């Protein structure tokens, strides 16, 4: 069986190595070009299909926990009606970063199959670990996904509130990034994090 398979592979390899004798170079180029467009377009379309809120909340783990929490926040409903959906914050815009994130997401599919967070209790128990993972990613990218919309160079500090302007100028002078202060803006924080962050972090 295995020798037959090896024979087939080596046979195919021999054919692929040889120059084409039947088809013109032009036909091969055109067919290759069209097939390339179809495959590449198909790949990108499939990837974009996984990049929608609809896709994210097709898992009940997302819909019942983080999505339900997010529906109560400013990124879901606000005066100007601009909404940031799941991929706006959680999937990078730049292509190569996006592909890397999509490959990493296969781990999430694995845990979906395992049912790691399939009840609210299990989710709550894992919340700190999950939150820390997102926080450290955001910290390492200088809150890149936040900055797709919020750029501190575009902020009009005069128009900001009393507390906002003092915190922002101080924070940026210290080289802080968005996620250093703005934790838990779209989802609930780990239990008791607000009361004492260090104690909540130590619970892990």
């Amino acid at each position: 069986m295995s020798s037959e398979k090896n024979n087939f592979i080596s046979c195919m390899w021999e054919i692929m190595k040889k120059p084409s004798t039947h088809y013109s170079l032009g036909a091969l180029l055109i067919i290759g070009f069209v097939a390339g467009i179809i495959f590449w377009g198909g790949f990108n379309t499939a990837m974009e299909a996984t990049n929608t809120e609809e896709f994210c909340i097709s898992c009940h783990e997302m819909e019942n926990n983080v999505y339900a929490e997010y529906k109560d926040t400013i990124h879901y409903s606000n005066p100007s009606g601009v909404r940031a959906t799941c991929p706006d914050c959680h999937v990078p815009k730049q292509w190569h970063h996006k592909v890397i994130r999509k490959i990493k997401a296969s781990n999430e599919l694995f845990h979906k199959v395992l049912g790691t967070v399939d009840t609210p209790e299990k989710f709550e128990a894992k919340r700190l670990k999950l939150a820390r993972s997102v926080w450290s990613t955001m910290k390492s990218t200088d809150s890149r996904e936040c900055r797709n919309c919020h750029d501190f160079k575009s902020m009009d500090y005069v128009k900001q509130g009393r507390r906002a302007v003092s915190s922002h100028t101080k924070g940026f002078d210290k080289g802080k990034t968005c996620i250093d202060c703005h934790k838990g803006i779209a989802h609930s924080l780990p239990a008791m994090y607000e009361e004492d962050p260090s104690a909540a972090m130590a619970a892990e």
Partner: protein
Amino acid sequence: MKKPTLIAITLIMGLIIQLSQAVAGDVTSLRGNHNLDQASKNPVVKHWQEDQKPILREFVHQPPLIPHTVEKYKITMNHNKCLSCHSWSNYGESGATKISLTHFSDRDGNDLANVSARRYFCNQCHVPQANAQPLVENTFKPAGIIRR
């Protein structure tokens, strides 16, 4: 019964019914002078007051008012958004007023190391302010001990 008496009673009864209808017509319901088949007026949306300096107290034991909006702030078993600035672990960095020590004792008078469960629900006493006029006029004046 004599005929004139009967007529008199009928007249008086008619008068009473007329009067009671007139009185009923003067009563306005709380939803305003609207027929039931008409939609009532839209309520005016009150806006929370913007971020401001701490508001002075009006009487000695008044829980301080909240001088900022608390829209979408949640207080649940696991979360208390107020504490992210006002707790003793956070007030230093945030520059907010720290929780009073009186909030650290339980109902038996034992001093705890952190906010007592009976004082955990901040908005039971502390409230934000909106541009709402008092519903009932009153003659309240701040306590004399509070200097203005």
